[in-house]
Each structure stands twice: as C-alpha cells, then as structure tokens.
C-alpha cells in the first residue's frame, strides 16, 4: 500500500481530558476511511487537528513523505486537506458560485472558474441550482455546494463530519454515490459517522475510536457489525445482553385511551402567503407515541411550534385533553404540562451561558418548586438539578458548570430531563436523536417510552425514519404541510412511507 498520509503518535489534551491519545494512522489515496466512535471519542478532535483548528500536543503528520505542520485551516487547504462540517459555513445571501469562489484572487474567479464548477458538478452528478442564493436551497444542496467548494480548491483529503445527519432519507443515497465517485478519482475521504449501515456501504476501512484512542483500523468488508459496535462501546458494554422487551406488544391498545391532543384543521400561512401547514388533523391518545415522519422542511417543525405555542396557527383548533388551547400563551401551555424538546437545542432549548442547574429551571422559573417565600430558591433549583444529573448520568456531574462546558449529548440530556419532568399531559420531541451516538440514542428512546408508559401522549417528530418506525405506535407522514397518511409501523412498508413522504401537493388533495 502506497502511504499518502501518515499520522504518528498524535495526542491532544484539553485541561484534564485526553481528547486524543497516541493516535496512529496510515492511509493511501483513493480510500474511504470511516471514523466510528461514541460522542466524545475524539473523532472531531482528530479531524480538527488534521485541518489545523487545533495544534496537537505531540506526534507528527506526514503527507506524501513530507512532514507538515498544519497551523490553520488556510494552511490545511494549501496542503489539500478540506473538511465539511456538520454546520455549514456558507454565506446565505450568496449563490453557489459566489460561495465556491469566495476568498479567491480575482484572476481565479473568471469564466474559466465558472466552467470548471459546472464541470465538477457533471463529474460527480451533483445537482446544484446556480440561480438562487444558498438561503433558498435544501440542506442536501447546501452540502453539495460545500463539497464543491472543497473540490474546487483541489483537496486530496476530504473530511466529512457526520454528513448524512442533516440529510433527508432520500438524499442519502445520491450523496453516498457522490462520495464514491470522489474516492474513485483518488481522493482520500474520511467519513465520520456513527451509522454502521452507511459505513458498511461506503467505507473501505473503519477506524474505531474510544476515549481518544484508536481501538482498531479494520477492513469493513470482513468485519462483522457486531465487532465494530463492540469495539466502539468497549468490550464490557458489549457483553451485556442487548435484547429489549418489545414494548409495543406489551402496551395496551392506546386508541381506546383518552385523547391527549386533538389538532383539528390547523393551517399556518406566512405573511408572504406561503402555506406552511394545511388543514392538519391529528389525534394523539394518552400513553401513545405518535411519530411524525417526513423529509426535513415539510412543516414538521412548524407543527411542533404551533402545538407548543411558539407560533400561532392561522386557523384551526387545538385541544389538550378536553381543554382548548388554540390561543393560549406559551407560558400557559407550559403550566398545562406540555413538555417540548425543540430541534435546535443549542440555540433554543438551552442557555449556554447559564449554569446546568439554571438550565433546568429557566423555562418555568416562577413555578412553586423553584421558589421559596416569593423568591427564586437557588437551593431548590440546585437540588432538582442534582437529582436529574444523577438520574440521567449527565457528565461532568457538576450542575454549577456552564451548560456550554458539556458535550452535545449531555446538553441534549438536560433538555430531555427537563421536558420529561414537565410533561404531565403531552411531550413534543423534535429530532431528539440528531447527532447522538448509539448509546445516547438508546437512552433517549428509553426515556420517551417510559414517559408514554406513564400515560403521557408523545408526539415524536423526526427525519430519522428508522427511529420513528422503531418507537412509534402510529406514524403520521407529512409532505408539503399536510398529513399525507397515518400508518401502523408494524404492517407498512418503507416503500409505502416513501410514497407518502414524497406525495406531491396535487396528489394529496
């Protein structure tokens, strides 16, 4: 094997945490290496070292036989190393071309450059709309623009950080196709992911990380999935039985239970006349988990916001139990026992500059349990937070730390713990497993099942179809702001759901 990239003994320490510990790696051109690991295993840190966001404390990187020191992302680009982050770095107001050519000297931005961009698009079968600003593009297209931006700069190493987590299910296959072509042209691709099936499909080798160490670099074709996940989770965890009781069969027939939420004929039209929600009807029973499936951006987020009061519907009614809440304030709905895990926990579900314990309290600070003698009781808040931190195993376990000091998975646990405790009648969760590793996903799903078991109606909105099907009692599919069908996950086919998800507005009527 001709070695193209050689990483030896790379270590990186943040405070007391060894984020990378003696990482070694040999890679050649035209290879796709998946990097697998739980949240906090060091995947992103390794990528950040390769593209110069962090400087390693020890070790060296040799590229094409020459030792390099990558001091900044700009230096990384000069060495031909590019990365596509989970959060894109595109200028929303600019078109694809402008974004791709941004920062280049004038002589490189001429018609030849534009022709080359189109050539790249053809080479990799990328569909990109060159006439609209990035803001108007779907996520998948934005991602293609990001990749084009890297390709245009002649990268020979491309790092993709959980690239499919933002994509709709239908966008994944074409995306993987594009990556395959990239590899075929001799590019070395690192594919950070924790989705084993994708890794199986795309990668030549898989590098498994755990606690900052490389647990193994194995050929994908000859390694059973079970072995991959065992290495990722650590042997101790893997030895434990993974079977879980089939909760769906154990549960009562919830359709006979009381109604927890009735949404009737709800429409939402923006001031510019766009119909975001159209005549949505939903019934959710107490103790039931109703999944909402659909491609990202078909009105699911807005539906959650209308139900929880963040947006006001243009018409239609919403009943919580027997109580009409169509025009109740957010605060009133919080008091009515509606828990809400929003999609964007960083920007919406949490206040990162507040401590962990304050984050447990901020959504309903005036409630009796946080007050004593008419004043906010820091003690009561601390007590509640401490219990939740223990119950949910939130780490680091110090509730006085700022929420920004915690990893994404642990931040999600804070939001989850807070809203589960709040949900007496209804829990609305949006993309609760987005970006979580296998263990954390399992944990979140278990919490949601437990809430439903206690008699709360759960609305489970997600674009990760397999999770929706796994957890829901019934699944409603949304397309273009409408409910295009409600199916029983046990006797439906993926094909059927796919059809409902892509039903065109005309067919829906």
């Amino acid at each position, binding site marked *: 094997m001709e070695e193209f990239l050689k990483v030896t003994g790379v270590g990186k320490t943040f405070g007391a945490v060894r984020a990378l510990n003696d990482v070694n790696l040999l890679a050649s051109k035209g290879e796709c290496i998946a990097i697998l690991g739980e949240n906090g295993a060091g995947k992103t840190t390794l990528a950040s070292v390769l593209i110069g966001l962090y400087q390693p404390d020890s070790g060296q990187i040799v590229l094409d036989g020459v030792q390099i020191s990558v001091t900044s992302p700009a230096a990384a680009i000069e060495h031909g190393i590019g990365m596509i982050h989970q959060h894109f770095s595109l200028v929303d107001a600019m078109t694809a071309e402008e974004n791709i050519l941004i920062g280049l000297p004038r002589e490189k931005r001429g018609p030849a450059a534009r022709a080359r961009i189109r050539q790249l698009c053809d080479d990799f079968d990328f569909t990109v709309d060159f006439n609209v600003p990035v803001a108007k593009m779907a996520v998948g297209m934005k991602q293609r623009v990001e990749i084009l931006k890297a390709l245009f700069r002649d990268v020979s190493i491309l790092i993709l950080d959980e690239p499919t987590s933002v994509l709709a299910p239908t966008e994944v296959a074409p995306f993987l196709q594009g990556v395959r072509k990239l590899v075929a042209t001799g590019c070395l691709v690192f594919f950070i992911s924790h989705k084993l099936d994708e890794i199986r499909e795309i990668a030549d080798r898989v590098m498994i990380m755990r606690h900052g160490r490389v647990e193994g670099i194995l050929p994908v074709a000859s390694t059973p999935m079970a072995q991959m996940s065992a290495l990722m989770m650590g042997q101790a965890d893997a030895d434990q039985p993974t079977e879980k009781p089939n909760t769906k069969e154990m549960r009562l027939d919830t359709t006979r239970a009381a109604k927890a939420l009735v949404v009737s004929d709800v429409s939402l039209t923006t001031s510019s006349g766009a119909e975001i929600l159209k005549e949505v009807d939903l019934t959710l029973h107490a103790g039931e988990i109703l999944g909402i499936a659909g491609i990202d951006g078909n009105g699911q987020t807005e539906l959650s916001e209308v139900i929880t*009061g963040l947006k006001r519907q243009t018409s239609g009614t919403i009943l919580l139990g027997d109580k009409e809440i169509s025009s109740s304030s*957010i605060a009133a709905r919080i008091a009515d026992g509606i828990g809400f895990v929003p999609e*964007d926990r960083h*920007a919406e*579900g*949490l*206040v990162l500059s*507040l401590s962990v314990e304050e984050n447990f309290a901020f959504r309903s600070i005036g409630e009796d349990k946080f007050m004593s003698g008419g*004043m*906010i009781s820091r003690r009561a808040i601390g007590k509640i937070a401490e219990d939740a931190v223990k119950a949910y195993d939130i780490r680091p376990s110090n509730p006085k730390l700022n929420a920004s000091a915690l990893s994404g998975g642990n931040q999600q646990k804070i939001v989850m713990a807070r809203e589960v405790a709040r949900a007496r009648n209804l829990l609305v969760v949006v993309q609760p497993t987005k970006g979580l590793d296998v263990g954390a996903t399992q944990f979140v799903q278990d919490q949601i099942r437990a809430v439903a078991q206690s008699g709360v109606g759960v609305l489970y909105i997600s674009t990760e179809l397999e999770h929706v099907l796994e957890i829901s009692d019934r699944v409603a599919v949304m397309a273009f702001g409408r409910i295009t069908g409600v199916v029983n996950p046990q006797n439906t086919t993926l094909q059927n759901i796919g059809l409902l998800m892509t039903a065109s507005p005309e067919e829906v009527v």
Partner: protein
Amino acid sequence: MNSLVMQRRVAVALLLALTVGGFLILFDGHNPFAAYKVLFFESFLNYWGFSNTLVKASPMLLAGLAVIIPMRAGVFNIGGEGQIYIGGLFGTVFALAAPDLPAVLGVPLIFLAAAIGGALWAAIPAYLKAYRGTNEVIVTLLMNFVAIHIVSYAVAGPLLAEGAPYPYSKEVAEAYRLPIVMPRSDAHAGFVFGLSLALILYFWLRFTPSGFQLDLVGRNARAAAYAGVDQKKTIIRAMLIGGSLAGMAGAIEVIGLKYRLFHLFSDGYGYDGIVVAFLAALNPIVAPLTALFLAGLSAGAGTMQRAIGVDSSVIEVVEGLVVVFVAAALVAPRSSSKSILKNLLIGGLFGRQKHSKKKEA
C-alpha cells in the same frame, strides 16, 4: 467565563491601563508614581477630595445602572444622558409646582416625577426597538441632543429664574434638598440612594422570576421565547427601568447638588454610565465600586494637574484606555493559558472571539 475569572481579568485590565497611562505621564515629563499618588490620595483619602468623588459618583452610579438593566435584556441604552436631562426637568417642574409639601412626601415624589420623565424619554426608543426593530443605539444617542436642548429651552424660557445672569431655574424649596452625608462638604445622600438601588436590582435579577426572565432575553432571545417570555415587553420593561434610573440621576443633580435646574447641568454622566456598566461587567452590585473608581479618576484629575502639572487630559486618556482594556478583558480567550496577562492579550486584544453569537442574535 465565571465571574471570578472575569473580575481577575478586569483587575489586570485596569492595571494595564494605568501602566500605559503612566508612560504617557512619563513622556509628558513627570513622575507617574507621584502623579498617581496625588490622584488617588486626593480623590479617596482626602476628606474634601473624597466628598467630591462621592458627588460625582452618585449620578455615575445611577447612569451605570441605567445601562446595565437594558443591556442585561440585550438592549444598549446609550441615552442615559438625555434621560438624565428629562428626569431633571420633570423633577424640577414638580418641585417648583409643589413647593410646600413636607420633605418625606416631596422628595420621593420628586424622584418619582424624575423617574417618569426618564422612563417616558426611554419609552420612545424602547417602542421603536421592540415593535419596529429600529436600532436603539442610534435613537437613544440622537435623542440625547434633543433632551439637552429641551432643557436649555426650558431654563432659558418658561423656567428662567427672575434676574438670572445665566439660563437656570428658580431654586427648589430648601426642604427638598438631599441630606449631606459628610458635614460641611457637598457630599449628599445620592450615592447611598444609588447603592440601595444597586442592591435591589442585584437581588431582583438574581432572585425574582421577572428579573431572571429579563436576563434570559439578553442571554438568548430564542430560548427566552421558548420559555414563554415576551421579548417585546421585556425590552420595553428594561428600557423603562433604565430610563427611570437615569431620570433619578437627574433629580439627584438638582435636589442634591445645584438646587436649581441649569442649562447643560450634566457633564456627560450618561456616557460615564456606559463605562461604569462595562467596568462592572454588567453586575449591578459591582457598579457602586466602578462608579467610585471612575468618579475618583475624574475628581482627582484636576488636583493632579494643580499639584504636579500633568495635564488633566491625560486622565481622560487613561479613562479611554480603561474602557479599551476592560472591553478586551471581557472577550473570551481563544485558547486558555494560566497567565491572565497572556489570556488578555491573545484573547481580548489580538485574538478572535471564540464563540460566534450569530445564532443567538
């Protein structure tokens, strides 16, 4: 960044500002140690000097609080100066219109009138910000000039005292004068009043739901909306509180110091308030200290000029340096190091900000 780290960084920033200022004094041909010694002795350890510091610190403190509360809700009130003027005007008009009330009733009512004046003045930019999205910095700043001229008009016209050689109003009733806390000096109870307000506001922000929610809007407006907090109302509330505080600073200048409403009676206290607020890292309980510090610099500058011959404008430069260094100190460093000095330099002045705030904006 926790508050302990923040306060240490502010302390280092102050030291740096004074060091750079020291070099300026040196280049001016004087001994910086002697100059600073005079400056601090005269403004904090000398009876008359300290009374002068207190007199200046009172309006600065209230003006500082008038910046802190809106800023905690994410609104930058640089209209303190105008709110001081309108507050002073309202307070004076009330005091002159009702000259015969007992002091226990009259003084609180004067403060109330001043607070209403300041709040009304702040209500305009508040409404524009909350419901029209107009930039509050521009509106509050420009309204300062309008307010100053309204007062100039009032004291040169309708309120002009008979036979006055200069635009000022009649004297307010003697009963309404604030008590003097340092005998035979000008030092009135204004600072004590400001101190108690600072304490109240600190507890309000920390221990009451309404204060906590105001802070929430400033920290993360989307999360506040998610918690059911009405952002528009919170912005208005924060600005009204800010306006009232600055308005009361105006009243303090009238019934505490000058006993009349003068043309141009506030010498930029509203702007000093911005420095007080940021020096205090927007913590109301630290504001009395930073107000005293800034007032001390400004009160000692003149003495220093007379004693050593250093031009008092050097002190203005030092004040400016303090603002720059403290602003730098409050930016999170890009990579942390044990040395505060190094952190300050790489983080604040020459580094890039660690977290982009675009999502929270």
